[in-house]
């Protein structure tokens, strides 16, 4: 018990002593960790946001179901119920032919006198406008709605929607790949730097072994040191990232209110937690592996 306590005390003392005395090495390690995690954080934020934007864009896809003429209220109600029962449908809105004509007339401008020239007749059909909760099911939903009695025709921007899905899928893929690459790069950089700092201290490590220290006795302070440096780097990265992201998106939403950006603090805190953990973990694993190479004497 006393031994354990003494050991813990020793480990902490040693780690902090070393942090104090190896200023420049520590700066390099913590700096690299900060920079790497910062880059990784940018990548993750890009992914999260492109994902979010893609999703928002996708969920704006709508299906127009044009109806046969001469349906009564009961028919409409029946059709509506059936549409609402279709999987993936979120919201159904009825658009009467009058509403449609008014919208059309507005598009031509007041001067075009569309209504007068039509002479009281309205060539447009009634319709339902359908929003999807699951945009990917738009094609199948449209097909099954089209088969309903009373539905004359269904439109959902065929072609364009498919293209859009492909595009968003690719954007997701590319941003994921970039994120993955940057992740690998971060790990490489941090591992390399820690190995270099250990390399600079390799003689120190072997002297400890020569004086009779066990592997763990040598290792523990280095591990703690690695963790602290990783944490420090991660903290800097998270702080800079958090600050600049909230400033940027704040400004962005002011100027471009329509653009969807992730401002959900739970998501961000999650991300920052992840980065922080990654920093500590990398510091720990990095020093473990690096110190290991120089313990074999």
């Amino acid at each position, binding site marked *: 018990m006393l031994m354990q306590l003494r050991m813990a005390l020793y480990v902490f003392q040693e780690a902090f002593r*070393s942090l104090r005395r190896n200023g420049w090495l520590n700066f390099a390690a913590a700096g690299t960790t900060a920079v790497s995690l910062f880059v990784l954080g940018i990548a993750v934020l890009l992914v999260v946001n492109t994902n979010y934007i893609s999703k928002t864009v996708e969920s704006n896809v709508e299906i127009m179901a044009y109806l046969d003429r001469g349906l009564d209220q009961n028919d409409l109600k029946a059709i509506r119920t059936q549409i609402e029962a279709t999987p993936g449908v979120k919201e159904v809105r009825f658009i009467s032919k009058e509403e449609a004509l008014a919208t059309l007339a507005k598009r031509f401008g007041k001067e075009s006198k569309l209504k007068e020239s039509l002479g009281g007749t309205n060539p447009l059909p009634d319709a339902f406008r359908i929003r999807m909760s699951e945009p990917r099911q738009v094609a199948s939903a449209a097909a099954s709605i089209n088969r309903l009695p009373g539905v004359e025709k269904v439109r959902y921007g065929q072609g364009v929607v498919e293209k859009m899905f492909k595009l968003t899928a690719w954007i997701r893929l590319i941003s994921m790949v970039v994120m993955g690459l940057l992740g690998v790069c971060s790990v490489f950089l941090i591992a390399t730097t820690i190995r270099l700092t250990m390399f600079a201290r390799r003689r120190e490590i072997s002297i400890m072994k*020569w004086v009779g220290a066990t592997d763990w006795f040598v290792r523990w302070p280095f591990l703690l040191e690695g963790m602290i440096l990783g944490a420090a780097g991660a903290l800097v990265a998270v702080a800079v990232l958090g600050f600049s992201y909230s400033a940027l998106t704040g400004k962005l939403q002011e100027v471009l209110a329509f653009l969807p950006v992730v401002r959900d603090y739970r998501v961000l805190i999650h991300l920052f937690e992840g980065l922080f953990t990654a920093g500590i973990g990398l510091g720990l694993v990095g020093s473990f592996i690096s110190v290991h190479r120089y313990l074999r004497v």
Partner: protein
Amino acid sequence: MIQFFNVSKFYPNGVKALVGATLHIEKGEFVFLVGPSGAGKSTLIKLIFREELPTKGQIYVGGRSIIRMKRRDVPHLRRQIGMVFQDFRLLPDRTVFENVAFAMQVVGAGPQEIKRRVPEVLELVGLKERAQMYPRQLSGGEQQRVAIARALVNKPTLLIADEPTGNLDMDTSWEIINYFQEINRRGTTVLIATHAREIVDTLRQRVIALDRGRVVRDEHQGVYAHAT
């Protein structure tokens, strides 16, 4: 304490540093290891210390085989041995005090014990006022004495010193050697590799002479060299 049975050490580049060495050193002995530069003295010491493994032969230290020893038992071996390295091997980012204290921390000594014992040995080697300096701020002889202090601090059962007086003046050398004799009288086995003819010839202890890797002489109450 130490047994070598037909031990050879060939380095990977082909140098035969030790060839068929057989020797026994009993507990409580005081032994000088002499021989010209490159004779294999440090190699022999490195083998005892398990810094190198022999190419051939068997080595026992304190009754245990060095060769069959598991990696995790090596620290325990080393803690029994107080070692003065020819190249000092001080920790560069620790003060004199911390360098000596480290050897105590390694064996699990407590802070009180360390605070008491370290100044004691530093006093002994005449470095009490240098306690807060770093190795790079010390003279060659001072560094050597820190290495000696570190070897002594745990009161080892076996003390090995590789050229412990190479950077010391005669007076200081004698002080150190006298102290080695004293701890030897108290039961510690002492093995010293040295070129200090005057010391070897005065003390007339057991002398093992190496030449080009071979044990060429092993005599009690020996001298540095026979007239040739």
